[in-house]
């Protein structure tokens, strides 16, 4: 079996608090992404999915740090790497796309220049060469009239165009791994679909792997091949998209599916998950989902359930994962 492109092991991220115990936001998370694979990370706000992605990209906000664990990229350990070497990876190897394209683009620089910056810095291209490449990339991402548009400023473009600019910028140096932090959440539904198709096509073309963070199961269903479901800083279920969505074994995953609209069965009632995710600072011991879980038993509250393999390549962190939730909760 070939080595995975990205291998995250027991990653914990949080805020150090002097002599007191650090506040854990992401707790002991592990997953692999193979070359060219499209991997989705699903969860609500506060689940820690964005921070996980940012840790891979070395873009954690001030005060938040990787507390323990390892991130192996192509066999090289990223945690603890000096900043200067780390930055050399960003761009040609790893690139990131952000959620809100309006704030993610520099408002006072023309978009063409912003796309050209990467190639100029990493591929050693001249000003003219990098600008040509920028226009090429803009054309590839389906931006009409790219030569003229390259001279525009971000505020002069629509949301969909701005996101395409971000994609062009990210792919301009041919990265092997593309990190996407909810790239379509801020877009209209029709535009979302186009942008997702674009991402898929471009990644197929270049062979880049995709790490896709979202709260929207439908998006994951469409775009990704494998996924991990995160809740309150833990991965509670992982496997291929088809497998997990067909046969969810963790009550949270089931809850997510039940609360999401299903276009195949529009008459099915939406059932929200009662309660709220736990506050980061005051997590109860045991399974973090216990307070909201319809299948909870006493044993759930004593310790964090380990990841059980329920089927080849499909794991769920629930002590009742052996029986599908569908059987247990009568509808």
């Amino acid at each position: 079996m070939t080595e995975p492109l990205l291998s995250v092991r027991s990653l914990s991220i949080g805020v150090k608090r002097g002599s007191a115990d650090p506040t854990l936001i992401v707790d002991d998370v592990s997953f692999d992404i193979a070359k060219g694979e499209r991997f989705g990370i699903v969860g609500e706000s506060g689940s820690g999915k964005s921070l996980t992605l940012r840790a891979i990209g070395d873009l954690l906000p001030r005060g938040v740090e990787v507390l323990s664990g390892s991130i192996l990229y192509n066999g090289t350990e990223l945690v603890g790497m000096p900043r200067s070497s780390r930055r050399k990876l960003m761009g040609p190897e790893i690139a990131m796309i952000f959620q809100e394209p309006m704030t993610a683009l520099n408002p006072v620089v023309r978009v063409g220049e912003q796309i050209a910056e990467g190639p100029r810095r990493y591929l050693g291209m001249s000003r003219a060469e990098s600008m040509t490449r920028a226009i090429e990339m803009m054309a590839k991402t389906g931006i009409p009239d790219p030569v003229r548009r390259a001279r525009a400023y971000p505020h002069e473009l629509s949301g969909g165009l701005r996101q395409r600019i971000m994609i062009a910028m990210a792919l301009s140096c041919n990265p092997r791994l593309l990190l996407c932090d909810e790239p379509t959440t801020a877009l209209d539904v029709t535009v979302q679909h186009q942008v997702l198709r674009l991402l898929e096509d471009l990644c197929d073309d270049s062979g880049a792997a995709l790490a896709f963070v979202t709260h929207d199961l439908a998006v994951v269903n469409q775009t990704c091949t494998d996924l991990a479901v995160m809740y309150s800083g833990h991965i509670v279920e992982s496997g291929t998209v088809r497998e997990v969505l067909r046969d969810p074994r963790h009550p949270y995953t089931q809850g997510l599916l039940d609360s999401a609209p299903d276009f195949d069965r529009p008459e099915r009632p939406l059932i929200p998950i009662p309660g709220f995710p736990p506050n980061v600072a005051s997590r109860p011991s045991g399974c973090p989902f216990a307070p909201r879980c319809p299948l909870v038993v006493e044993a759930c509250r004593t310790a964090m359930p380990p990841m059980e393999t329920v089927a080849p390549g499909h794991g769920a962190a629930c002590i009742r994962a052996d029986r599908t939730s569908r059987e247990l909760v009568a509808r």
Partner: protein
Amino acid sequence: MIDRLKFIPGRLVQSLPVALGVTLIVFFMAHLLPGNAALALLGERATDASVAALTEQLGLNRPIWEQYVIFLTRLLHGDLGQSLTYQLPVTDLVMQAIPVTMSVLGYALALSLIISIPLAALAAFRPGGARDLGVRSYTLLGQGMPQFWVGIMLILLLGVNLKIFPVGGYGTTMVDHLYFLFLPALTLAIAMCPTIIRSLRSSMIDVLGSDYVGTAKSKGAYGVALLRDHVLRNAAIPTVSVIGVNLGYLVGGSLVIEQVFALPGLGSLMINAIFARDFPTIQGVTLFVALFVVVVGILTDVIYTMLDPRVDFASKDQT
């Protein structure tokens, strides 16, 4: 770019009332003086005959609005009256003094940018850290020090004790000027820096927390390159406004500094005129300085527009 500068003519027109208001106030200054204005203009030792003659000549016995029109007309021809002490046109004296004052101001602006930008960056990259606290202590202290006193301290330290710089005077050649003007410019710069640093630091912190800096980092930019290409271009924008607003205060400060360092600029002209009760000169310098501030305001708007492509002055509200 050019069509975004189309707002300039409109802006100039907008400034006219302010400029007119300035001339009005300067005009009335003469009439605030106790006693006859002609007497004030000629000085206390003037004879009755010359006072009468000047009154006639300046039309001081005409209604006041007529006098204002005369004043304005003369102004538009560049006539600011005659200095009582030197018996020379005030305009000439002002013209002679302008280069000195402007050099000090420009020099001070350059120095303060050189000092402020690195300090603000140091503070902004790690807010709350040791360097930040150091920088903020400096800004706190700096705002409490009287400018002229700072000048004297600099003279004491660098001019007297270490003998690196001269303690006063202007010099004759260009190189001389750079040398002689260094201490006064530094004094002004030290006075300006706290305001600039506070504004720059604050906007840098905002910029550094922004998403597009995250994007830049995700493209591998960091350190000086990040600062230059991304942070400064955005953080400079509100600071330009702040500098523009404070330039007025600074001009006043430079006038005082000229006294400390014995520089033959507008400040010395003004102060000497005050002691000599040379009112036309006082009026002339005040007028020039105020109009200069108005022009600086317009220039600031122009620079602001050039820096920030999102700004559209045509629809800008006046707050």
